[in-house]
């Protein structure tokens, strides 16, 4: 198969902004005025801090390949997609590609609430690179796929958020480009629609031999649609090839970092006013434990700090557990165990108790979230590792069935034979 995208020695350097990314003219004036004073005082110019978000990236992608890009937060995935879609320029190196590119870094880019569904389809379609003729031709298909026929001449501000997402995605799903760049757009919408979209993507790639770059944290989605995967870490390609190998490499990476001090980790997302500073396990007597035991109670203690001195209102703390193949299993969340608003002191601890740990022997990863007023303040992928030893979840004292160690959950059940 011919090479369709060739990335050579690609690098992108960013300047770390001191406070905000844009300036007020006023600040620049002040700086200029202070300059002679600072020079007299012998102060040197502060050197701008720079860092490489991406460095020495080399990739050759063949026509029809569906390439998954995985890596922890801040590994350079988004930067790579942004350069590929020409939103930002590289600092060094080059990319050569053949044919047309469509990038979907967000669902519904350019959607405007005041415009009707129809107007938005035409607007969004042309922003994504479709011609008006092409959109007209596919208009009915798009409507049908989204299932919003009856509302098409209504402003989208009256749509439910689910309807908006469906309409936006179905425009995207009908794009025809040789190369598609997709960033976690599937993380939105209801589960059924997500499946429909994945199905659609599957169908298009198989039948049209389209090349896709796909970024996701969802290993399930990567497994389902990718034919090849690349792991990025600190702006470099550390693994390239077989999907399963790449996923397990990535999970090992997350596992090893999950044992690092939570406070100093940089691979996090969220606004950052509140940050997790520690995670450990305790038994019911508040003694620290290194491991948890299958079928026994365990307390997961999350420590956090905020920059504010006042208490945090309307908080939501949650932990998502995933197994060794990166499958997300379940989520423990304060929003389901607490009625009304959860108010927390500006810094402290929260403890999550699982009465009978439903895991067999193996390692499970915990992704942790801290939200205030519905806004994610801190999110750490692999914020902690839960090492589970065999225990008495089942009365027989046996753990997971063969081949299921560290995978899935244990469920109470019984068998009748006659």
């Amino acid at each position, binding site marked *: 198969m011919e090479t369709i995208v060739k990335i050579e020695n690609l690098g992108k350097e960013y300047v770390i902004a001191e406070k905000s990314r844009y300036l007020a003219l006023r600040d620049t004036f002040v700086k200029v005025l202070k300059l002679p004073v600072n020079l007299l005082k012998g102060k040197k110019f502060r050197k701008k801090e720079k860092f490489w978000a991406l460095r020495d990236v080399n990739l050759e992608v063949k026509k029809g390949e569906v390439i998954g890009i995985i890596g922890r937060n801040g590994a350079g995935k988004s930067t790579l997609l942004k350069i590929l879609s020409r939103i930002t320029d*590289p600092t060094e190196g080059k990319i050569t590609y053949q044919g047309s590119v469509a*990038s979907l870094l*967000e669902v519904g880019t350019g959607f405007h609430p005041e415009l009707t569904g129809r107007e938005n389809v035409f*607007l969004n379609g042309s922003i994504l690179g479709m011609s008006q003729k092409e959109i007209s031709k596919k208009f009915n298909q798009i409507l049908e796929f989204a299932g919003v026929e009856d509302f098409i001449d209504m402003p989208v501000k009256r749509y439910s958020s689910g309807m908006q997402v469906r309409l936006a995605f179905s425009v995207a799903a009908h794009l025809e480009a040789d190369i598609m760049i997709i960033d976690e757009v599937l993380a939105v919408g209801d589960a059924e629609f997500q499946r429909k979209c994945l199905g659609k993507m599957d169908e298009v790639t198989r039948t049209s031999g389209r090349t896709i770059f796909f970024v996701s944290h969802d290993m399930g989605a990567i497994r389902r649609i990718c034919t090849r995967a690349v792991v990025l870490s600190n702006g470099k390609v550390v693994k390239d090839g077989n999907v399963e190998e790449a996923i397990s490499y990535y999970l090992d990476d997350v596992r090893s970092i999950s044992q690092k001090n939570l406070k100093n980790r940089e691979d996090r997302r969220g606004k950052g006013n509140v940050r997790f500073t520690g995670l450990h396990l305790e038994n019911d007597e508040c003694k620290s434990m290194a491991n948890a035991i299958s079928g026994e109670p365990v307390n997961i203690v999350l420590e956090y700090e905020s920059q504010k001195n006042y208490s945090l209102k309307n908080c939501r703390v949650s932990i998502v557990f995933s197994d060794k193949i990166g499958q997300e299993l379940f989520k423990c969340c304060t929003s389901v165990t607490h009625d009304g608003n959860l108010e927390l002191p500006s810094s402290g601890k929260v403890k999550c108790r699982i009465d009978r740990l439903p895991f067999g022997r193996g390692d499970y990863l915990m992704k942790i979230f801290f939200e205030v007023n519905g806004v994610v303040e801190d999110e750490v992928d692999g914020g902690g590792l839960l090492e589970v030893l065999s225990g008495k979840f089942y009365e027989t004292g046996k753990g997971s069935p063969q081949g299921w160690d560290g995978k899935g959950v244990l469920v109470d059940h019984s068998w009748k034979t006659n």
Partner: protein
Amino acid sequence: MKVTVIKPKRSIFHINWQELWEYRELFVVLALKEFQIRYKQTVIGVLWALIRPLLTMVVFTFLFGQIAKLPSQGVPYPVFSYAGILLWSFFSTAITQASSSMTNNSKLITKIYFPRIIIPASTTIVSLIDYLIAFGIIFGLAKYFDVPITSSVIYIIPALFGTWLLSLGVSFIFAASNVKYRDIQYALPFIIQMLMYATPVIYPVTFAGKYDWILKLNPMSGLIEMHRAAILGLPIDWPLYALSMGVTLVVFLGGYFYFKSVERYFADLI
């Protein structure tokens, strides 16, 4: 198949005509969107395009025509000033809207690639449509004040073209610098106000007497004078128009290249 190469630092003097042509539809679609949005949120909609210049004319007629008694080349002051206000509002709304256009469309800029210049350029089209709507009033005014409109009215086309070019140049500068310095958009209304007094909108260019050469360096002077002469059937000052077009071209090219030179940082800054 078409081969594309992505490399660092494209030269600012390289103009990709083919690409601009490929994105012509997006230009139209974005202009249309701006127009639809602008008038969907208002009760009387497109009537705003008529009311604004009309009310301005009434106020100016009272202040400058009745009280200050500014000269108006022997034409009734309302018609005289409306012919100036019309073109001036095209220019001023175009640059006001365009200067915040990049920041208003930050979502597009960080998510999708297209020639960025389309954004400020397409916003100026909305002001052009406003102008065309408000132009209709001229006929009513001319009839009422008994000012004949002759065939010389076609000369509004070169005046309009020059104004559009000038507003594009100025828009490029403001739109691009507003990405980096957000206080531009706060200073702009003030700048525009000052500029209006430095332009023969409410008075003829001859009013400045021996200092009229300063006034003539302002490219809007020649354009407004021409626009007014075209409507009122007065003789056209071609040398002045040529001078204004010269300055306009310099501003346009300067604005364009300034925009191109900072364009690649937009997605990182915005």
